[in-house]
């Protein structure tokens, strides 16, 4: 670091007004060209491969030109030990071409006027949002929120003791294996894992008979195609996602703090609540959001286990796009869901910066 600090004592940047004007004009030209390429690429009649190449080339070309202009207008010294920033350009190009621009299209479609069969008239029409806030959709959204919230709660109840046990009590040489076992279900197809519950919860399976002979239920299991089945599927699929980040924080816990507290007379429960829970709060919050957010957009699990009889908001959006071809309304709904989720993300950012300030990094 000391070496880097010495070399970056840059000489004061000398003003080169003419270079800056030329740079600005060149930059605007490149920007115009990039926009032109993106909007007109369909009418150029190119094949798929040249289009991809063009898209991929346009952005780095833009960035490289910008960097060159910056260099021309300002003197800067380079840190020789680091890797050059140019290495990030491929990813940057990819993100621009296949993430940011698609999102811009989504926003554009959300305020366009639908013409049917996926066609739209570009413009500024808030009618889609109005339609998206229809009580029918709001009800589905609230059901989604409730299902995801209950699912998250169940995951916390199931996952926290598990992570706690691995981090504190499991034999040290077994911990790697125990963690690997949590990931192994991920290596079977997500759909297979989900549809296995079609077998397990079916009234023909022996579980149903057992529950009946134990007098726990009167009739054969009738869980399939209900919200409860979806709930089970959600918990099952997202539990590992919660355990892993939580384990990462629990692993760093200093258990001597807990021992000190109990030695000084705190009860086990008080020590857990006041020390362990607080110190693991960042991992808990991360894990919770990591499962809550994807659950809100889930449509495959309800499709499989709900049998099309219970809709979550994801199913509505999916049908609007793939069946009704109402891209405009679908985009508006997707944006509304994203808006609702950004509330949780903001909450997360707020909580994580606050805990960081409280306890240090």
């Amino acid at each position: 670091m000391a070496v880097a600090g010495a070399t970056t004592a840059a000489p004061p940047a000398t003003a080169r007004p003419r270079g800056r004007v030329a740079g600005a004009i060149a930059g605007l030209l490149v920007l115009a060209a990039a926009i032109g390429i993106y909007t007109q690429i369909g009418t150029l009649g190119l094949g798929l491969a040249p289009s991809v190449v063009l898209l991929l080339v346009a952005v780095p070309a833009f960035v490289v030109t910008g960097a060159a202009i910056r260099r021309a207008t300002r003197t800067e010294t380079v840190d020789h030990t680091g890797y050059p920033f140019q290495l990030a350009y491929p990813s940057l190009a990819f993100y621009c071409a296949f993430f940011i621009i698609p999102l811009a299209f989504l926003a554009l479609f959300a305020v366009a006027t639908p013409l049917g069969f996926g066609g739209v008239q570009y413009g500024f029409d808030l009618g889609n949002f109005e339609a998206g806030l229809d009580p029918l959709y709001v009800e589905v959204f609230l059901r989604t929120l409730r299902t995801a919230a209950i699912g998250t709660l169940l995951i916390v109840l199931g996952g926290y003791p598990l992570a706690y046990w691995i981090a504190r009590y499991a034999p040290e040489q077994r911990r790697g294996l125990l963690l690997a076992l949590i990931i192994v279900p991920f290596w079977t197809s997500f759909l297979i894992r989900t549809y296995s519950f079609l077998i397990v919860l079916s009234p023909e399976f022996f579980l149903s008979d057992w529950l009946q002979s134990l007098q726990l239920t009167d009739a054969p299991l009738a869980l399939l195609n209900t919200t409860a089945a979806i709930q089970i599927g959600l918990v099952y699929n997202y539990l590992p996602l919660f355990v892993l980040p939580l384990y990462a924080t629990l692993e760093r816990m200093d258990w001597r703090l807990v021992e000190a507290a109990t030695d000084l007379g705190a009860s086990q429960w008080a020590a857990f609540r006041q020390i362990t829970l607080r110190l693991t709060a960042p991992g808990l919050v991360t894990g919770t959001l990591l499962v809550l957010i994807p659950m809100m957009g889930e449509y495959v699990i309800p499709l499989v286990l709900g049998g099309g009889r219970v809709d979550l908001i994801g199913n509505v959006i999916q049908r609007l796009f793939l069946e009704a071809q109402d891209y405009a309304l679908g985009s508006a709904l997707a944006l509304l869901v994203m808006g609702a989720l950004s509330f949780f993300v903001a909450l997360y950012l707020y909580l994580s910066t606050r805990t960081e300030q409280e306890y240090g990094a």
Partner: protein
Amino acid sequence: MPDALRRLGAFAGALGLVCGLIAVAAFPISLSAGNVSGRSAVALVLGAAAVVLVPRLVSIPSLLGGYSALVYAFLFAPIVVVVVYAFNSGTSVAGFEGFSTRWFQRALEDDTITSAIGRSLQIAAASAAVATVFGTAAALALSRVSRRVRNPFDVLVFLTLVVPELVIAVSSLIFFVNVGFDLGLVTMFLAHTTFNASLVLLVVRARFVSMGSSLEEASRDLGASAIATFRQVTLPRLAPAIVAGAMLSFTFSFDDVVISNFTAGAGNDTWPLRILAGLRFGLGPDLNAAATMMLGVTLVGLGASALILRRAVRTQGSAGSDVA
């Protein structure tokens, strides 16, 4: 022997505790629904007894251990069910009729299954390769630049991971359709790679930052070129993270349903899409058989790579090159 008995006791204790809690929690629900029977009262009493007694009889660590065993059972039971039912001789979904391997043969002969798996492998391999190169390069570039450059990029990466997959899928669909791309393998590959690059970037950067830059600086000071430093110093130390990132990407891409469903177009079913289509017409044991075979292949591959990684770590450890 007493050790095994204690473990069994812990497991039973945890099971009793969970059942007790459920019974206690279920009582007010059935009360509010207005159908209280003698049975639910008995369940309440038994459940309360379990909740009170079990923590006094079993120590907390072993209770937690038993509870963890329960969660593991929950995680693995459905997979075991799929594997077992792959050997079901009957066509019925949930009734086991007898042992047979005919579904394995049926799955191997089914052209739609094998070609779907082939397509999935193709996309996953391509996406993992490209995402690993892009993500690793970006991780190297970003780790030591100024905050002003890094923060916007971090926000971008964070966004690609936080935006729900469904939103990414629908925006990709709109984009591809309007730009005039034909939906197919290429569009699926492109949409997967965006997400995968972020995955690799995060994994690799975490490792790269924790490594510190002293060895790289020493290498450069001693006259090695940037490329030689990368090849001989950075790359070997980053290898585990890069491999992990590549494997994560491959898994994500191979298993992805949502993005693929929107960007596949017609007639390009990947393996998950093939299962989804199969579900529409009802389950078949041939899907179970194919899934079982793939699980076997994955586990063998995982075991092999774990062995290789362990050997790599051992040789590296004996050379004493790992400073961090």
